[in-house]
């Protein structure tokens, strides 16, 4: 908004061009920030994992190893990209680009603070869900184009896994939509105001946060559901033929998706940019820091799960997704709808003191 005004009035451009230019600048800056932050999330993940195993983790490059991820990225970029002779070259190279692009595109609708969002669209949640359901293409295309049995088998397995868990994520989103009454992510956060009593984690939706957390782990192929690249058993899943920058793109996309789902959970259940208690020193803190703090908490849990939960078997993974999480989340759609229709109009004022209901 500010940039648009500046281009329109100070630089004297007509509105459509001012708006386009402002959006382009905003998008470039935003993506750069997200991309650089990924380097530190990866480092945090490795440090947490190391701490659980009583190691030090990366500590050589830069102070406390802060520059380790940048060094790794450099190493990947300067390696020779190897394309297998029998691979389908176009799709082989397009697949990681699609994976990374989708991971970036999803951030367009994530509100960082009141009004801090690139595209404040009415169907923000559906957009996020659509983009995350496309993530599977990066996987299948990469696996198929490698023209390798192992890559293809792993791609099929992980595609089946992602498609299965998307279903329960979809139902979890529906329960939140029923409570918030809007598909706009900013409106969902506003519906949880003004303080933590309104957050959906402290409402009958709490079990859905657990379902969402488990499904997010499966959706992003994080341990304990990282069957496709189980290091101790397989080589690297569908990425087995990838090296150098294409591999880097997959890696980047994977971590960005994890952070995106943490952000989505913070927005849907933990009140997004809202402070836990709406009193002065806390309300003065910029909302983006509150959102960041919530993402950090969730990301910490994701990392800890990686450190201590043993890997699932494939049939157990499918059983958990289809026979446990899916029925529970479907049931909860009914529960949430009944709550909104029957309980909230009657008991709303009473529950408003306990939680936002």
């Amino acid at each position: 908004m500010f940039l648009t005004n500046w281009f329109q009035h100070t630089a004297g451009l007509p509105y459509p061009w001012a708006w386009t230019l402002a959006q382009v600048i905003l998008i470039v800056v935003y993506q750069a920030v997200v991309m650089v932050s990924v380097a530190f999330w990866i480092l945090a993940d490795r440090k947490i994992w190391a701490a659980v195993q009583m190691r030090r983790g990366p500590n050589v490059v830069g102070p406390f190893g802060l520059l380790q991820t940048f060094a790794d990225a450099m190493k990947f970029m300067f390696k020779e990209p190897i394309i297998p002779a029998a691979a389908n070259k176009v799709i082989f190279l397009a697949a990681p680009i699609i994976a990374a692009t989708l991971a970036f595109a999803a951030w367009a609708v994530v509100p960082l603070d009141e009004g801090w969002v690139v595209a404040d669209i009415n169907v923000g949640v559906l957009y996020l869900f659509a983009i995350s359901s496309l993530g599977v293409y990066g996987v299948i295309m990469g696996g198929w184009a490698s023209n390798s049995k192992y890559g293809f088998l792993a791609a099929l397995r992980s595609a089946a896994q992602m498609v299965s868990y998307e279903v329960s994520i979809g139902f979890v989103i529906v329960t939140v939509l029923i409570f918030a009454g809007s598909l706009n992510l900013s409106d969902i956060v506003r519906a949880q105001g003004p303080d933590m009593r309104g957050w959906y984690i402290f409402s009958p939706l709490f079990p859905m946060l657990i379902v969402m957390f488990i499904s997010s782990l499966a959706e992003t192929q994080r341990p304990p559901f990282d069957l496709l690249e189980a290091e101790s058993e397989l080589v690297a899943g569908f990425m087995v033929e990838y090296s150098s920058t294409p591999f880097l793109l997959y890696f980047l996309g994977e971590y960005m998706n994890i952070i995106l789902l943490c952000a989505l959970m913070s927005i849907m259940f933990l009140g997004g940019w809202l402070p836990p208690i709406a009193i002065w020193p806390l309300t003065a803190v910029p909302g983006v820091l509150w959102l960041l703090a919530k993402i950090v908490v969730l990301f910490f849990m994701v990392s800890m799960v990686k450190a201590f939960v043993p890997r699932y078997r494939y049939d157990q993974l499918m059983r958990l997704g289809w026979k446990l999480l899916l029925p529970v989340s479907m049931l909860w759609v009914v529960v949430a709808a009944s709550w909104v229709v029957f309980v909230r109009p009657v008991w709303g004022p009473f529950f408003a003191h306990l939680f936002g209901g």
Partner: protein
Amino acid sequence: MILQALAFYLFATVLLASGVVVVTSRNPVYSVLFLILAFFNAAGLFVLLGAEFLAMILVIVYVGAVAVLFLFVVMMLDVDFAELKKGVQSYLLPGLGIGGLLFAELVIAVSAHWHFAPHAVPAAATPKGLTNTAALGHILYTDYIYYFQAAGLVLLVAMIGAIVLTLRHRDGVRRQKAWTQISREPSDAMAMVDAKPGEGVE
């Protein structure tokens, strides 16, 4: 407006071009990938029309689910599409004829005095002060709830039918019982045995 026009021509051109490639491509996997591109651009056109809910549903349902299945099948089947396409010459003329007929019918239908029925006009436009998601919701779940439920019932019957037709109970299959596995205690499976030297354990 000029941005919208540019966006429209971009989406429409890519949509048509990828539609042509879907039909003409030699490699079926390319066909499916271009089909996905076509879905995407159709979603873009929906957004330009202000039907953002339909656009997102198109991407979620068709691109996110249906096309994934297509891709699965096409990648795993070893179909020689060149063989299948051999007969294309003999079907070309009737095919073109039917296509031309349909196109002519469309042109006649649209270019004649084609308009909405009077009672459909208020339902066609999105009411003021409502997003089109909410408007669709009102129409589906409030105005036409019984039709909607009936449609759901038809789908349920189709689903049950598909399961009944394909489900076969085989004898002698050892299924995993998750509950017995989880509820198994160390005391059920282990025993402390004091083994004397030279005697072993029975």
